[in-house]
């Protein structure tokens, strides 16, 4: 584990813990956000038969860096009627909520921020901070569009937490643990052992679980998509109706914080979906490290597979964005309460029966 290694080097448990907690931010989230913004623009462009950014660097690879420099230079505008204290606090809360989720996500066999037993429940709980932050930001902005966006966001995120949690409970019933690291280890290194294909235990239960798991994967993917306010569930920041929702009034680095949080969130939910249903950091076809007998290669390969899976789901999110138009508010609520939640309940009961009887 990286923590022990850091402890050996620094000789202090506190320093090791601080460095370890900063690792995902500096070696993962920031580079990922830089990359994801560019990826989003490139994917959007090519899906619309355009090219996307092409000017800064080769095929625009330095575009995001230029954008960041621009955002740093920008004036931080605060309107006179804003509630200054909460206005400043909101982006920090939103970012803290999405960053804290990374603490319990296992990046590889050798690195997990905090290997807590409540893992997945902790993630669901801590992302609740995002709702508070968004509502706070919308209210403190003193702007009707911001407030409307924030209220929609709160309603949407809270509604869609229900199907997410029901599916999470289903997964917990099968695996018998809430620890994401253990869930990843439990789905072993071959793709037919992953939960989307019924888990590593062979038998009747596995065959019965496959269709249920496919549907529950769809449900959790859609509901987490709604939780991070991505299209087609982006009514909180619907540009055509609400200017830009709860971050209308934000500018400069505060806006960048919201932006960073959005991309961090995108990866966080992709990582959760990948961990629950697609084996987390496990390789689908075994490890080169095992073949050649190089033990230190395995964690690196695991990190690669984890990032690849996460990025794949981030790509699917972008893909969906350019496929589906935005929901109406009533459609959004109907989709959650009339379709996702009943289906999630049925799956919960069926999986419960399967795990008890078989």
């Amino acid at each position, binding site marked *: 584990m990286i923590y022990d290694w850091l402890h050996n080097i620094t000789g202090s448990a506190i320093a090791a813990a601080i460095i370890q907690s900063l690792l995902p931010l500096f070696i993962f989230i920031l580079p990922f956000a830089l990359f994801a913004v560019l990826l989003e623009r490139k*994917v959007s*462009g*090519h*899906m*619309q*038969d*355009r*090219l996307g950014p*092409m000017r800064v660097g080769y095929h625009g690879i330095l575009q995001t860096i230029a954008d960041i420099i621009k955002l740093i230079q920008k004036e931080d505008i605060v309107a006179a009627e804003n509630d200054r204290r909460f206005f400043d606090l909101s982006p920090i809360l939103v970012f803290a909520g999405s960053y804290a989720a990374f603490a319990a996500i296992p990046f590889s066999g050798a690195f997990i921020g905090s290997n807590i037993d409540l893992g997945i429940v902790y993630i669901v709980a801590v992302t609740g901070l995002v709702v508070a932050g968004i509502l706070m930001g919308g209210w403190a902005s003193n702007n009707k569009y911001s407030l409307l966006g924030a209220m929609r966001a709160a309603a949407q995120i809270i509604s869609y937490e229900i199907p997410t949690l029901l599916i999470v409970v289903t997964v917990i019933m099968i695996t018998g643990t809430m620890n994401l690291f253990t869930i990843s280890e439990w789905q072993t290194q071959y793709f037919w052992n992953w939960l989307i294909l019924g888990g590593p235990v062979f038998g009747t239960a596995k065959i019965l679980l496959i269709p249920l798991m496919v549907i529950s994967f*769809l449900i959790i993917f859609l509901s987490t998509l709604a939780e991070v306010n991505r299209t087609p569930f982006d009514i909180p920041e619907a540009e055509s109706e609400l200017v830009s929702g709860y971050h209308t009034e934000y500018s400069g680095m505060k806006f960048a914080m919201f932006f960073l949080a959005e991309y961090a969130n995108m990866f966080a939910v992709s990582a959760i979906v990948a961990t629950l249903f697609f084996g987390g950091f496990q390789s689908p076809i075994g490890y080169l490290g095992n073949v050649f007998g190089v033990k230190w290669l395995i964690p690196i390969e695991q990190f690669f597979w984890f990032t690849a899976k996460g990025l794949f789901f981030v790509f699917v999110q972008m*893909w*969906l964005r*350019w*496929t*589906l138009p935005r929901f109406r508010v009533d459609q959004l609520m109907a989709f959650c309460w009339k*379709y996702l939640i009943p*289906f999630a309940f049925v799956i919960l009961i069926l999986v419960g029966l399967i795990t008890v009887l078989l």
Partner: protein
Amino acid sequence: MKDYILKFWQGLITIIIGMRVTFRHLFVPAVTIQYPTVKPELPERERNRLYVNMDDCIGCDQCARACPVDCIQIETVKSVPGDDLGVTSNGKKKALWVTKFDIDIAKCCYCQLCVFPCPTDCIYMTDVYEFSEFERENLVYDFVTLTEEEKIEKKKNHEEFMIKKEVEKAAAAKKKAEEEAAKKKENGDQPGEKPPDNKE
């Protein structure tokens, strides 16, 4: 209940169909043209900035007369016999010094009507279409190849030549008159030719 399941199924299928369409478009070549570096191919008969090849211009003023918005202004000076103006590319002899050939491209309506009457094909549309300017005065294009001094010189030459010609003409007329008078004298005095010097 059946309707409910059917709706769910239809939603799923249509999403998959839509995603297939967008995925296919990911690999369709982009229609974007990287404009300032890569220029779009223009149609064969595009009409853009006017250009005048002054080597061929004979100063006939036909383009200026054809122009519906009067954006071409031409002034010419006749050449004197000693001047060598050369010939145009299609063999026409030039007879005029063009001292002013201004095209106000800001007024130009790109109708191309000036191009057709030109007897030497020296005014034509180029494929240059990026010629914006910060000052409106910069859009008046001056095509004259003569320098200011040369213009003045040509004018002076012409005036001098005209004066000389006038003088010669006067001299010639005088001579002619004299000759005629002499002739008449030879033929015999006839009244009316010259008023008789009665007053003296």
